[in-house]
């Protein structure tokens, strides 16, 4: 058993870290304040191949692996969780299900531009009445000649409006329950596909979170992803992979807050000395660092399990559960160690604490992760 990263993973981390510090960190505060999608940095990442890291080269990707992708999301999220989730949702939730379930033609048409950075991707499963209970899909797809007609709406969709390609779930046969759900690839600009409200969120405020509305939206039959009725399985396995991305995002937020706090407590003086000299600070930092490292090992283990083609649902659930709870705990402690300053927007730990919360909620709440983990044991 070897906990050392390979040289290529270490060098990839250097690249992601340099990019995050030089390009992303300088705008992170502004992205949060203005709630504007960081389009310029997304374009830079598209050109550098950050949006196709684990995708095969034959489909326009970088030919790396899930571990390198997780390290990318981690390093980006250390300085800007918004940027981290843009990459995660695009890669894990849109490119990945097309790679795994798409026909050769679908891969050529949709996966190649997603992987080589020409197009951005998103995923639409959640509905107003179908959150954790994803089986309660009300969006319908009816086959009519050579096309399906979509009607319904999706909410809380990451990369909404900004993305060009969407993987969308809809009921093709309500009588069959989860076996009546199918997956579709829908392109922005398709008549009948519009965007509703943009959510105003607590954190990851630069991430575009939109409602998607389908009104008699006619999509070609060949955009059915996988077989009819296989959508629920596609959604669940896609979310297994997505959880590695969100776990990496949570890890990054926690690690970023820890780095910021270490710098702060060395500078901040009270009672005539740096607060890093007080044992309370030292013990808090020790606990934070230990938890961040434990989260990192779980995230990397899940990524490596996926790369070795093993089942990884439980590993991904544990990584996501633990890393997201660590993110919340570490950012809360980070704010506490910053004192009053930590509660102001002058210091990034305030943003990090707000950003952390969503990682316990999306792509399966912590409660869902506990269900997945316990179901494998009991």
């Amino acid at each position, binding site marked *: 058993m070897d906990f050392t990263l390979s040289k290529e993973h270490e060098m*990839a981390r250097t*690249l992601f870290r340099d990019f995050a510090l030089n390009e992303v960190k300088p705008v992170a505060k502004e992205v949060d304040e203005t709630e504007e999608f960081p389009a310029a940095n997304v374009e830079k990442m598209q050109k*550098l191949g*950050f949006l196709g890291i684990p995708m095969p080269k034959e489909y326009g990707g970088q030919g790396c692996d899930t571990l*390198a992708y997780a390290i990318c999301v981690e390093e980006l999220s250390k300085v800007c969780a918004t940027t981290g989730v843009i990459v995660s949702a695009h890669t894990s939730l849109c490119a990945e299900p097309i790679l795994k379930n798409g026909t050769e033609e679908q891969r050529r048409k949709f996966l190649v531009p997603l992987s080589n950075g020409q197009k951005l991707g998103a995923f639409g499963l959640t509905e107003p009445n179908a959150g954790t209970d994803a089986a309660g899909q009300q969006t319908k797809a009816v086959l009519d000649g050579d096309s399906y007609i979509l009607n319904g709406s999706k909410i809380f969709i990451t990369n909404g409006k900004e993305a060009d390609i969407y993987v969308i779930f809809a009921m093709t046969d309500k009588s069959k329950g989860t076996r009546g759900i199918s997956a579709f690839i829908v392109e922005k600009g398709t008549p009948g596909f519009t965007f509703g409200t943009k959510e105003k969120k607590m954190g990851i405020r630069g991430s575009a979170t939109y409602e998607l509305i389908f009104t008699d939206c006619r999509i070609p039959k060949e955009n059915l992803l996988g077989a009819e009725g296989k959508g629920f399985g596609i959604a669940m396995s896609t979310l297994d992979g997505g959880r590695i991305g969100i776990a990496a995002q949570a890890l990054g937020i926690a690690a970023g807050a820890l780095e910021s706090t270490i710098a702060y407590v060395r500078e901040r003086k009270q009672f005539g000395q740096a607060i890093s000299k007080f044992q309370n600070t030292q013990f808090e930092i020790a606990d934070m660092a230990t938890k961040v490292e434990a989260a990192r090992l779980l995230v990397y283990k899940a990524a490596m399990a996926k790369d070795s083609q093993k089942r990884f649902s439980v590993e991904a659930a544990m990584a996501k559960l633990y890393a997201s709870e660590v993110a919340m705990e570490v950012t809360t402690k980070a704010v506490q160690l910053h004192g009053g300053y930590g509660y102001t927007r002058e210091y990034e730990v305030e943003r990090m604490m707000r950003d952390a919360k969503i990682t316990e909620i999306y792509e399966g709440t912590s409660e869902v992760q506990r269900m997945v983990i316990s179901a494998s044991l009991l």
Partner: protein
Amino acid sequence: MKIIVCIKQVPNTNEVKLDPIKGTLIRDGVPSIMNPDDKAGLEAALTLKERYGGEVNVVSMGPPQADAVLREAMAMGADKAYLVTDRAFGGADTLATSTTLAAAVKKMEYDLIITGRQAIDGDTAQVGPQLAEHLNIPNVSYAEKIDLDGKTLVVQRQYEDRYHTVRVQMPCLLTALGEMNKPRYMTPGGIFDAYRKREVTIVTRADLDVEDEKIGLKGSPTRVVQSFPKSLKAAGVKEAALEPEEAANFIMEKLKEKFIF
């Protein structure tokens, strides 16, 4: 155009600390990086390749771990990489280094050699110009801008308070300034290929046609007598609110106090 870029692996001096007792650099745990001027030189070479075609090969002399900067160069877009490494090359000063590099480069094809102006660990700025001397080719130091005009290069070089625009016949050598450009990022796939699909060619003592007396410690006439940190002086006094005349008088008084004037 065939371009060779010489790159050096250096400790990231931003993170180097001085041992307060010995006065030497503490290099343990300090990350190694590609020397910034060399990286700018590599970027300039890759840009020339994009504009005019050709190939960009990279050469580094150093210990086996210098492999990392060559992989990095390939991940940025360099074609072939050569690591000149052997115990026999150890302890080389700038003269022995440039002699060794020249022996290695002589075996390669090139129209242009680019080196960095200087390395951030040694700061000598000697290896590039020495290499040009050994190869008997013209050298233009401190290049900031490079254009191709037929078979010659038009180089803008920085010269204290002005620029010189120099026309130089190839083959030639340029030393590049870190400020000349913003080096491109590697790509993730480029990094994986650099490690998993591509090779760094190892060049050892046995591959080079050079005399033993001219390489390594033996070939190094330089002797370091002492190295020491700059001593810290007390912070100066700030007098911002003075009128020009008062300021002049203030400075004169201070100079008199120190017996300088």
